């Protein structure tokens, strides 16, 4: 057991898989010699050498197209996109090529690849470096979408993503990089599509993802002080989606709140709400509530950005307003 930051957990997860499987390789801008702009890949070049860890030009289509071609020809590549906002520069390859090719070729092509990318706000970077892009990916058939909230989960879910035979977009949250926890030694491998219960409770189900998980946990603590017992569910992956986790929880609590960092329209919480409305409406004691960022790009100024991104107080207010 050693204390590990979320940032260091990325390198540990990649190293765990590269040690195990020689077909795992890593490319991206500044990932090798520099160890990544967020230092998430530090030490990997030294450990695995320049054939398996390689710096690319600033060519996002070449990075994701490159790992697609490599996955078609015997590698299990990991490609890093420095910021998830940059998915937009190579979205064609992600959506039209990576996501559709297996289906269009009727299974002739397998694409065991991972696109890792730094996602989300809270860093005062402004509108083009703060996007929560997980909804973009969730909307595309053929992509698996993973977003860990803890250092331990970074290792376990990254391992699961690398081993998965299908393309995975792995969202690392920028505002969580410095968070730490004790992580067990030895190999950690999770399964995609299994949510985690972060708190147990009877009065309300709060579903969250990535950086919104600590927000929801903090809210659960504040609610407990007011006599409200909240069950916080960390989805961990949007595709596959663990619907059983929240449907089962709502059957017990009768109330459902989703906490999303992404802009309002078509956020993943809307999909959760729609599933709950279709499948467990009679378990609900009141309307489903979505807490989201407003439908705006994220502003840079600290006061404005903090206002935009949901915080624990906002979640508490939303829950108390339901009662």
């Amino acid at each position, binding site marked *: 057991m050693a204390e590990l930051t979320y940032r260091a957990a990325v390198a540990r997860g990649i190293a765990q898989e590269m040690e195990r499987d020689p077909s795992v390789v890593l490319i991206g801008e500044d990932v090798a010699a520099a160890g990544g702009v967020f230092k998430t890949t530090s030490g990997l070049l030294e450990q695995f050498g320049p054939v398996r860890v390689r710096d690319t030009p600033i060519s996002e289509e070449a990075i994701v197209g*490159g790992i697609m071609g490599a*996955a078609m020809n015997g590698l299990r590549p990991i490609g890093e996109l420095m910021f998830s906002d940059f998915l937009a520069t190579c979205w064609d390859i992600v959506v*039209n090529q990576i996501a559709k090719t297996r289906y269009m070729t009727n299974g002739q092509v397998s694409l*065991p690849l991972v696109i890792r990318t730094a996602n989300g706000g809270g860093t005062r970077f402004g509108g083009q470096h703060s996007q929560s892009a997980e909804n973009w990916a969730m909307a595309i058939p053929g992509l698996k979408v993973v977003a860990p909230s803890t250092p331990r989960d970074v290792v376990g879910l990254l391992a699961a993503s690398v081993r998965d035979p299908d393309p995975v977009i792995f969202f690392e949250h920028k505002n969580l990089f410095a968070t730490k926890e004790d992580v067990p030694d030895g190999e950690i491998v999770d399964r995609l599509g299994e949510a985690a219960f972060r708190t147990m409770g009877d009065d309300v189900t709060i579903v969250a993802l990535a950086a919104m998980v600590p927000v929801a946990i903090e809210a659960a603590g504040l609610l407990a002080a007011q006599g409200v017992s909240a069950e916080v569910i960390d989805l961990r992956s949007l595709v596959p989606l663990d619907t059983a986790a929240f449907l089962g929880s709502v059957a017990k609590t009768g109330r459902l709140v989703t906490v999303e960092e992404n802009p309002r329209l078509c956020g993943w919480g809307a999909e959760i709400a729609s599933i709950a409305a279709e499948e467990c409406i009679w378990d609900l004691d009141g309307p489903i509530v979505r807490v989201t960022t407003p439908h705006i790009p994220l502003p840079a100024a600290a006061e404005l950005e903090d206002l935009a991104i949901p915080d624990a107080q906002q979640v508490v207010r939303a829950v108390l307003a339901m009662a």
Partner: protein
Amino acid sequence: MAEPATVDIDPSTRLALYRSMVRARYFEQRAYDLFMEGIVKGTTHLGLGQEAVAAGFAEAMNPTDMTFCTYRGHNHTLLRGAPMTPLMGELAGRDVGICGGKGGSMHLTDVSKGAMGSYAIVGAHLPIAAGAAWAAQVRQSGQVSVCFFGDGATNIGAFHEAVNFAAVWKLPVVFVCENNLYMEYTPISAVIPVPHPAADRAASYGLESIIIDGNDADVVYDMATRTIERARSGGGPALVEALTYRHKGHSRADPGKYRPDEEVAAWMARDPIVLYRERLTAAGFDPTLLDEIEQAGLAEIDATTMEIRNAPPPPPETMMTQLWADGGSQWRN
């Protein structure tokens, strides 16, 4: 322009080149007929007139080499060895289709033959072909990837990203621009500031400027052999511009009226199959041998057509298969 091949190409290879072009010609003519008849639906982008490029490269490739092509990819997929009935079946949306009817005319793929896909977003497959070549380099597999695209593709970002990436990593990939002078309806000359869409860009990536007569199967085969073997032996990528012309319009039933009559006539007079037959005959090949190749090609496409006419559509349950590697399409529990 590279000189006509002076190297000796052995007679069996030249017969194979002729056979390839003839088979591709019959396939595409029949695809057109079946489209007009309503058997082939949706769209088709025919390679009629461009057979020499596909034949020359396919003949120069090893079985484990990889072809990446565009929506105008019937020739390339067929000539890597994909069987004809599943290809035509795919165009017609039948269960026997090579992609089970899920791909269609623009996405012919036969991974078992190294035909790694036909891509319908202009330029998108260049980085993918480079990536497959990167895997060959990492795995030291000795494979080369060959990537075909049109003149129009040289103006999209992915072209430049991929050629630069391949050049700087010295990847074993040969990029082949089939310059047929037109995009859909607009001539390429109207949208580039240099005469040659691919060759004139090569220097930016430290590559040799290569322009060949894409209607001369010997020339194509010769340049294919040289660039592929150089890539295989670690010499890095090549960018080849092959001048050619499509005999029909861009797609479907497009009559191609935007092309001047004299230009069409001049290129029709340079039909790669007619030219090659003349060359082989002059070189002393027995004309009855060439006739036999043509008869066999016609018999093959007739047999395929019969099979396709009677073939059933894909069963409904296949709609939900093969999104994921487990064969299904589940996204939740």
